[in-house]
């Protein structure tokens, strides 16, 4: 649950990031097209929503919400730090997190 929620929070932050011109050029080649910022932002909101739902179903409303908020904030900090120093890792980290979440789900 934890890793899935964190992966989703990270994905949400990444989508928000891709919706900003400055960061899109850091992450993708100039000729790659991405959906409009509004669509990316809505997708990000959906990701955050699913992450919240995951946290609440596994930890209860009170504690789940606290954990979710912390996860979202930490995902944002991690993404910003990666963007500053290791921008090339930003996109590959996402499938890694997803794989980790899937593995921990199976296990």
């Amino acid at each position: 649950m934890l890793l899935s929620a964190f992966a989703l929070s990270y994905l949400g932050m990444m989508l928000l990031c891709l919706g900003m011109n400055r960061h899109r050029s850091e992450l993708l080649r100039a000729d790659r097209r991405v959906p409009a910022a509004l669509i990316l932002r809505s997708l990000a909101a959906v990701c955050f929503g699913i992450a919240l739902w995951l946290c609440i179903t596994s930890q209860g409303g009170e504690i789940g919400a606290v954990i979710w908020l912390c996860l979202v904030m930490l995902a944002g900090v991690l993404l910003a730090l990666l963007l500053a120093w290791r921008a090339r890792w930003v996109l590959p980290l996402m499938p890694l997190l997803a794989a980790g979440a899937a593995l921990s789900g199976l296990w």
Partner: protein
Amino acid sequence: MKLRQSMAGLHTWGGLLPSWLLFVIIFAGTVACFDKELSRWMRPALHDGVASSLGADDARGWLQQNVSDELHAFWMHGPTEREPYWRLGWEVDGTETIHNVTFDPRSRQATPMAETVGGEFFFKLHYNLHAGDVGMYIVGLAGMFMLVALVSGVIIHRRIFKDFFTLRPRANGQRAWLDAHNLFGVVGFPFHLVLAYTGVAIFVASYMPAAAQVSYAGNVMQYFGEVMGSYHRDELHQPAGKPVSLDALIAESQRQWGGGEVGWVSVHHPDDASAVVDIRRRDRSRIASPQDTLTYDATSGELLNRQDASTGYRAYLWLAGLHMAQFGGTLVRLLYLLMGLAGCAMLIGGLQVWLAKREQRGDRSLPWVRALNGAVFGGLPLASLALLWGNRLIPTGFAERAVAEGWVFAGAWLLVALWSVLRRQQGRRLLRGQLLLGALLALVLPLVNGLTTGGHLLASLGRGDWALASVDLFLIAAGLVCAACAWRLDGAGTPAVIRRRSPRVQEA
């Protein structure tokens, strides 16, 4: 624009002046997330993870045999997962001083463990700076300043969403630090705001005492009693009869709750016929602690009262619980720890912005601000490490051992402060020296721990005792980070590399 300008002034000065104090509070609070693990590390008797087989009556028996003063109250807490031992505290009648003792879980009789300040040292530093009520008010004032700085910071930040992910370590000094300050402040904003607010709210009755004083004609205890729905019985000044078994009352309480866990057990004026036993319920599955205390007559064991807390008090407890992070297990504490480190980074970033802005003008006050930075941002983590060294190296039988540990902490901090003042003109050399010292202290400490106790890292890892191993592992990680930063600082030719955010805050 008028508002933004006035807020900028407020943010600069209202943020700068309390920022060193806030660093102490936030850093200590961050460490205090794992205070109980630290306490275990600091008590070698707990290293093999044996759970205590003592009962509440054994603890009371020790008190009756060893303390002859008339007591105002005593209280005790049984073994829990994080603290597998009995704790006992008491207050002698007519004095305000509190005594504490902890019992060795390996022993079948109640045997006190060697004194230590334990991880509570950081908890206390966090909420009152070890300065009693005065310290509590100072911390409260700093917390209010933090709220002011947070709100004014949002108002003066022009591009809060546009710069959300922006961090440009290769930009010039002021820009890079402003990015860092903004990043940790804005992304961590909900955490900082909630923690600052709930932190101030915990002592709200002390910060705003007027209403209770007036409505209850100065009898504040009655106010607290009514709000909490707790039971109070005045002293009769007659000798007490033979007290009933505490363990039996604990078992009875668990039956009443339908099998809940027991928290604090306290006895008020135990030497008087009016003595009462309070048994609190412990429940870590909710944010607010449960208010379900049962009060018994200490002689007959008759149930006198079942706590009925007011709704307002329950709401207050929810806020306090949110701050204290005793719910949700290790995960929540770890998240709070990381967010707390983000808070420390925000403070350091903010001060560096202030410095960088004035460096171009060559202010005369700069060396002193740098000295203060070195004394607090470097001094507190180094002094904390020194405290752990003291804990390992002061002999077990040393009289007033906990006090000696406190002096090690204070002495180390004073030395670092002096060092920072002497080196105030050479900021880089000072920082490098502090990082190297931090690396040395943190990396050798697990070795010292292994040599002085049986609870070395390999043993605790071998047992799968992660709670204990995590302290050593954290020290090693912090030491490596310090060493890496000192290394970079050393080989840094270009200013861009030097300006990286200093991870000094990650020491603990």
